[in-house]
């Protein structure tokens, strides 16, 4: 890797300029050689090839979506799963081609991918009538309509920032739960797929998010159990206490959090900052359709760095951070469905 990542502690802050410069020169030479090679291969990239492949794939997906109307349930489900997967791959293909496309081509292609994603979700809602979800326990309540409303006001939200009031057409687009007490809150895949989800100001709730959000923010949550399917990018946790969090993600960033357990699958790294009493165990929740959600998320199910937690308040020392621990195997929760929310 050409990037020079320098551990930030008291020693390295004082790296002599000379050493830095020498190292920089070495990296630059490596970089130059790599760039030379790369620009050659980029020159060979062919916009025509992109256009042809992209439109063929797009047509195939549209075919899948439209033909699943005339088939039985099981087949339709399979076809839609297939369409989701193919759309995901198309997005990847597009991402990898960005460097040689014009802004216009990129925008067109991105719009097509988004349209495909939209049609898959729509069609899925048509084909599969929503199952009524019931909990076995009598004490657990299912979510109220008010709680599953998008965050904020119906059509307009005003944010006061400094002296300026910012009006944003916000809420319809942002999904999650806010300001809820003592409830069971559930979202299904079609509501949160590849969206940004916000969970804030919750107390004594059990939250279950089936599906693959793009990113999740969890802020100011107390005594909750939160289960979530694979998240494509980062999960950002701030001001949580007494919680049990169970999810898979690419990055986990935990701030100002205490007395919280995290059952984690993370493909890059987890960090904590200004936390104490946080403990970690490997992600061990499964639900029907999770494998497919993993594919949609783009996360590698076999790559889990749950136990390599970096503490940003504990960089200078050679000793392990006192702010986090591993949950002993004998004390790990293994059955999530049986667990009821605290009352």
């Amino acid at each position, binding site marked *: 890797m050409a990037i020079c990542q320098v551990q930030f502690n008291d020693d390295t802050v004082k790296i002599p300029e000379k050493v830095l410069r020498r190292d920089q020169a070495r990296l630059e030479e490596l970089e130059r050689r790599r760039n030379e090679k790369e620009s050659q291969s980029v020159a060979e990239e062919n916009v025509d090839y992109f256009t042809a492949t992209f439109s063929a794939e797009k047509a195939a997906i549209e075919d899948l979506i439209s033909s699943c109307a005339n088939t039985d349930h099981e087949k339709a489900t399979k076809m839609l799963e297939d369409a989701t997967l193919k759309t995901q791959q198309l997005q990847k293909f597009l991402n990898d081609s960005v*460097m040689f496309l014009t802004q216009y081509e990129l925008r067109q292609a991105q719009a097509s991918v988004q349209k495909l994603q939209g049609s898959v979700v729509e069609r899925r809602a048509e084909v599969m009538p929503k199952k009524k979800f019931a909990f076995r326990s009598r004490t657990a309540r299912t979510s109220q309509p008010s709680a599953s409303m998008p965050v904020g006001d119906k059509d307009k939200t005003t944010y006061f920032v400094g002296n300026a009031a910012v009006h944003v057409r916000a809420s319809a687009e942002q999904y999650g739960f806010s300001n809820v007490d003592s409830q069971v809150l559930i979202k299904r895949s079609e509501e949160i797929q590849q969206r940004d989800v916000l969970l804030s100001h919750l107390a004594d709730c059990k939250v279950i998010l089936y599906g693959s959000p793009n990113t999740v923010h969890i802020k100011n949550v107390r005594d909750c159990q939160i289960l979530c399917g694979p998240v494509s*990018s980062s999960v950002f946790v701030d001001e949580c206490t007494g919680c049990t969090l169970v999810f898979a993600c690419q990055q986990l960033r935990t701030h100002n959090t205490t007395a919280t357990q995290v059952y984690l699958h993370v493909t890059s790294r987890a960090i904590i900052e200004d936390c104490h009493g946080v403990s970690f165990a490997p992600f061990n929740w499964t639900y029907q359709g999770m494998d497919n959600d993993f594919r949609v998320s783009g996360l590698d199910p076999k790559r889990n760095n749950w136990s390599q937690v970096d503490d940003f308040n504990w960089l200078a020392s050679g000793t392990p951070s006192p702010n986090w621990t591993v949950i002993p195997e004998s004390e790990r929760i293994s059955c999530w469905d049986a667990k009821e929310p605290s009352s």
Partner: protein
Amino acid sequence: MGLLTILKKLKHKEREMRLLMLGLDNAGKTTILKKFNGEDVSTISPTLGFNIKTLEHRGFKLNIWDVGGQKSLRSYWRNYFESTDGLVWVVDSADRLRLEDCRKELGALLLEERLAGATLLVFANKQDLPGALSKDAIREALTLDEIKTHHWCIVGCSAVTGENLLTGVDWLLDDIAARIFTAD
């Protein structure tokens, strides 16, 4: 050494720029840097410390410093201010809850004497998310229109799709070039 060689050498040196990329953690700084350089962005870890990357673009040599945005690291940002030509401020456009924090940090930065001459590019990143605020909403939230001390511009972009990254960087280079390379 002939005069021409010396001139060429000088010129070469002059076409170097130092860009500093800052913003709150999780904004997408490292992802932007890697995407701009055509690298894989799916394996990026939260930045402990900093990344330095040198790359060539339009005949300019760019020295880009990507410094970690965590609270405990923000006081170290100062260590990187020296001789900065361009400041790239990255915002997570979907993170409404930290906009105020974001505005304050940027405001404090612009008061720094050592950044006085720098051009400011604001990237309203993560525009691919359905809940992202538009670049105009970000502009209002960060009260950018009140900035009179620096040349600035805001560009909506996505580090994941790569959309508008080039547009932003090209604006930044043009502005810096007009300012510091006018001698030739």
